[in-house]
């Protein structure tokens, strides 16, 4: 299995994402934002960081990068795509996922180990979890408050499209404690917290992030 990891100017977490892919047992393939070429990968990860310096809005400029044209086309055909943090923002700007990520309600940049609850285990990136499972992985962002209109929120709730929620106090003002969502088909997932930083107890708070990367291999084998 070959999983592409995209690097935009200002991406920070591409190396950790590639490392997580290797830990899961797949080959990580570097994809460059300026190349409209996915190198035949089976799935794609849009990692965290500050692509284009977060200018205009987070993810607003990256969304028009040449590599995104290909990713949007393939995602619409069912290819698994995971956006983490800035990657989630890019997926929302690209309209692959609904809603938007806005400034944290207390304005602070947050960086901490966050407890979360897995709500959906049917997406391409969450099948190796059990429903209701609590995990602890790092959360680090300034604009992680998930916002959408009431109709979209109801549709996300009614159709089991909320992947993961914050446990305890709402860290950033996200509606309904949403930390991650999926599209209708379940192949595109956006997460605010960072599973790629929690794959080895030597370098992270837990190994709770690893099942996201193993899940996609299960999904690809099952295809």
């Amino acid at each position, binding site marked *: 299995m070959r999983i592409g990891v995209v690097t935009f100017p200002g991406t920070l977490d591409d190396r950790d994402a590639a490392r997580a892919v290797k830990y899961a047992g797949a080959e990580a393939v570097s994809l460059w934002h300026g190349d409209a070429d996915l190198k035949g990968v089976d799935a794609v990860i849009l990692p965290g960081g500050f692509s284009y310096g977060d200018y*205009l*809005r987070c993810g607003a400029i990256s969304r028009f990068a040449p590599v995104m044209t290909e990713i949007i086309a393939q995602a619409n055909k069912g290819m698994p795509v995971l956006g983490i943090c800035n990657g989630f923002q890019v997926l*929302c700007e690209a309209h692959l996922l609904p809603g938007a990520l*806005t*400034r944290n309600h*207390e*304005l602070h940049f947050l960086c901490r180990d966050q407890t979360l609850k897995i709500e959906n285990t049917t997406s391409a990136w969450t099948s190796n979890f059990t429903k209701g499972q609590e995990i602890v992985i790092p959360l680090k962002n300034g604009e992680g408050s998930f*916002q*959408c209109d009431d109709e979209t929120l109801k549709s996300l709730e009614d159709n089991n499209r909320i992947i993961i929620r914050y446990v305890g106090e709402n860290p950033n003002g996200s509606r309904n404690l949403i930390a991650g969502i999926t599209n209708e088909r379940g192949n595109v997932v956006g997460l605010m917290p960072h599973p790629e930083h929690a794959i080895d107890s030597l370098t992270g708070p837990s190994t709770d992030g690893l099942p996201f990367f193993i899940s996609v291999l299960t999904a690809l084998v099952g295809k």
Partner: protein
Amino acid sequence: MGKIVVDVMLKPEILDPQGKAVAAALPRLGFSFATDVRQGKRFEITVDGDVTPAQIAEVEKAAEVLLANPVIETFTVRAE
């Protein structure tokens, strides 16, 4: 040279933490007039010659896809 101005604001129902922070700072400085503050963005776009209706229409299209995110923001376009 003509100028086209695009004002972008968060929709009223979207929380604006920056506006709230400004609203909280004003009374600390002795300014007691504000009951609410919303913060937005302003783009000034320079074009050759006088602004034409066609250019305004083009900028409206650009605002829809790039300058504003219609999920959370509204915008207005005008010649100045």
